[in-house]
């Protein structure tokens, strides 16, 4: 029997039953593609996208038996299913805010919808990759789609041409820096392959079993992989694309980048580190600790100086990358649980704050400048109250869930005796009060400067209220998510050396 016959007979048919969510997302993307081609019915495009995503979300819950399929290149386990469910859920919320915003700014393209779906597919592939090749290809599908989405602020309104120009600038910046990140990751993968002879996480783990097994090639591969992942998750000092790209993109796309894409990146960071390099955790946990400390310090201090709230939230998302990756400095079950918990709750806080900006930017005269927030509590009391909840949660004040997230990371760091990082985390959280509370104080303690009239769609109101309720409920009863995170982290640890 020739070697080709041996290979082919060993393969068999992939288990398509566990791939149903991905298949539904892909088919929905192509259906939207063709609907957009033949009709200009905008309500139909939105409805099809959301229906497809809901179907995909339901199908995630229908999978009861996980599997490693597609010839060992695709893993469906509870970790990937959990993240897929949350990625799809957040995409549904974000897509519901697309149409009113784009129509107001006259940048409506049907392409927004199916490109978002392709990016989501890339993220789903990324979170369920047991192999460096699958991870790389998913990351690329996500990144390339997002470069395009940032640059799509092609407005027909003459007064918004500045935004048009800035959006191209942001997209170009992200394209160049993201391209460098891709190059770094591919070089890292080449080095890891050269050192171990395999792309598979489990096999890499079985070869890198202790400190002695690390040679110079493997070490260089690990360092470059961490740098590339940090760049994609916008950790300092690889964050320079973030403020420009976030500020320049249309706000719903910013939400998509800051929430869905980031959470997918966090998930794959955790999976690569825990599954591929579990026995050399001392090396990477210190690298992540340094990156986390730098992100917290730089992100928070620069955010203090921002006058534009959208740009401020971009720096705040850099700081949150710091808080979340700080949990990796404690490579224990507690640390991983805190990492997963914070990633999940970050979805609700960040969607809340950014959808708020989407809703207000639709109104004429609103520029996201901090002065526009003056006296908002008098003009629009409900919205101001909701923003207060999100700001408190991002800051981490007790009745909201943000406190629980930071507490989890803090306790994990204390448990592993990484005192210096725990101290940095607490001090930087205190400093972040400077800019989060400024938004709140400006809303409640000033008289309105401009006379603006606000109008919001029902979907935006509903999403904001729902997010605020989730943030408060989880803040009072965090056990709900904490149990899930602990289970996930123990499953992840149990899968080492499978």
């Amino acid at each position: 029997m020739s070697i080709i016959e041996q290979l082919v007979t060993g393969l068999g048919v992939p288990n398509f039953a566990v791939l149903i969510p991905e298949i539904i997302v892909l088919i929905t993307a192509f259906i939207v593609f063709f609907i957009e081609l033949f009709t200009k019915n905008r309500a139909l495009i939105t409805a099809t996208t959301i229906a497809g995503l809901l179907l995909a979300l339901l199908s995630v819950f229908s999978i009861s038996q996980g599997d490693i399929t597609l010839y060992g290149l695709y893993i469906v386990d509870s970790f990937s299913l959990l993240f897929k469910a949350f990625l799809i859920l957040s995409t549904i919320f974000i897509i519901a805010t697309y149409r009113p915003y784009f129509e107001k700014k006259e940048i409506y393209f049907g392409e927004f919808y199916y490109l978002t779906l392709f990016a989501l597919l890339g993220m789903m592939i990324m979170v369920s990759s047991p192999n460096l090749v699958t991870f790389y290809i998913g990351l690329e599908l996500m990144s390339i789609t997002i470069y395009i989405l940032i640059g799509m602020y092609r407005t027909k309104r003459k007064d918004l041409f500045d935004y048009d120009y800035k959006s191209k600038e942001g997209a170009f910046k992200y394209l160049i820096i993201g391209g460098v990140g891709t190059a770094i990751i591919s070089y890292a993968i080449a080095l890891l392959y050269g050192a171990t002879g395999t792309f598979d996480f489990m096999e890499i783990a079985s070869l890198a079993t202790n400190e002695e097994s690390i040679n110079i090639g493997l070490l260089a591969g690990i360092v470059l992989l961490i740098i590339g992942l940090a760049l994609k998750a916008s950790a300092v000092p690889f964050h320079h694309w973030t403020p420009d790209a976030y500020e320049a993109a249309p706000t719903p796309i910013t939400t998509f980048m800051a929430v869905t894409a980031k959470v997918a990146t966090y998930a794959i960071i955790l999976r690569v580190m825990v599954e591929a390099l579990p026995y050399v955790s001392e090396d990477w946990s210190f690298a992540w600790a340094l990156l986390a400390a730098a992100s917290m310090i730089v992100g928070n201090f620069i955010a203090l100086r921002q006058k534009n709230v959208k740009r401020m939230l971009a720096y705040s998302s850099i700081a949150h990358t710091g808080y979340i990756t700080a949990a990796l400095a404690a490579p224990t079950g507690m640390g991983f649980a805190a990492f997963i918990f914070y990633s999940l709750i970050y979805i609700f806080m960040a969607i809340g704050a950014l959808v708020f900006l989407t809703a207000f930017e639709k109104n004429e005269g609103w520029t996201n400048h901090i002065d526009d927030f003056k006296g908002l509590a008098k003009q629009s009391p409900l919205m101001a109250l909701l923003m207060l909840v999100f700001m408190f949660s991002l800051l981490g004040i007790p009745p909201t869930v943000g406190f629980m997230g930071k507490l989890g990371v803090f306790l994990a760091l204390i448990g592993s005796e990484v005192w210096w990082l725990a101290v940095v985390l607490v001090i930087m959280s205190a400093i972040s009060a400077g800019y989060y509370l400024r938004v709140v104080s400006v809303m409640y303690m000033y008289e309105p400067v401009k006379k603006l009239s606000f109008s919001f769609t029902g979907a935006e109101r509903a999403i904001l209220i729902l997010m605020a309720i989730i943030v408060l409920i989880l803040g009072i009863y965090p056990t709900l998510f904490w149990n899930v995170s602990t289970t996930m982290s123990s499953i992840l640890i149990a899968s080492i050396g499978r």
Partner: protein
Amino acid sequence: MDLNAISFWVFSTLAVLSAIYVVFGKNIIYTVLSLISTLIMVSGLFFTMGAELVGALQILIYAVAIVVFYVLVISTVPQFKGQATDGKYMLLSIPVGFIVFLELAYVSIYGVWQSSTGIFDEKVLSELGNAKAVGTMLFTKYLFPFEVASLILLVAMIGAIILGRKKEDVQGV
């Protein structure tokens, strides 16, 4: 002298000559054309050594895709400023180039040493050939990433069309 040796000498002489013109040529279009010639000659060298896959990839990727991209950039940027006549860059480029050469030489020789490991050892390769071995892996085990790469190309194409479209054409939406 058999045909293989003759073709080796012809290809390598032409490759070196056109590489020298790439470095010292003054006209930027001629240097790019000369670069294409170098790459095609190098792929000819691969063919004479029996590495038919690498030779074909060399023509497909370097000679066609990348050099055409260079020509496109040169022809779209007006008054291209890449004047190669300034002598002061020589001071930096010659030592750096030499170091890169040493590294490449080390890696290539070391790679020849190490390349006989893995499931495709020399015996299998002599039975199958390079193209068949790579194709087997690409269309069995790595089929899924290969298919997803087509999606990436589709997305990139859509993006190029949307972002590159003229402003006036957008009015019909």
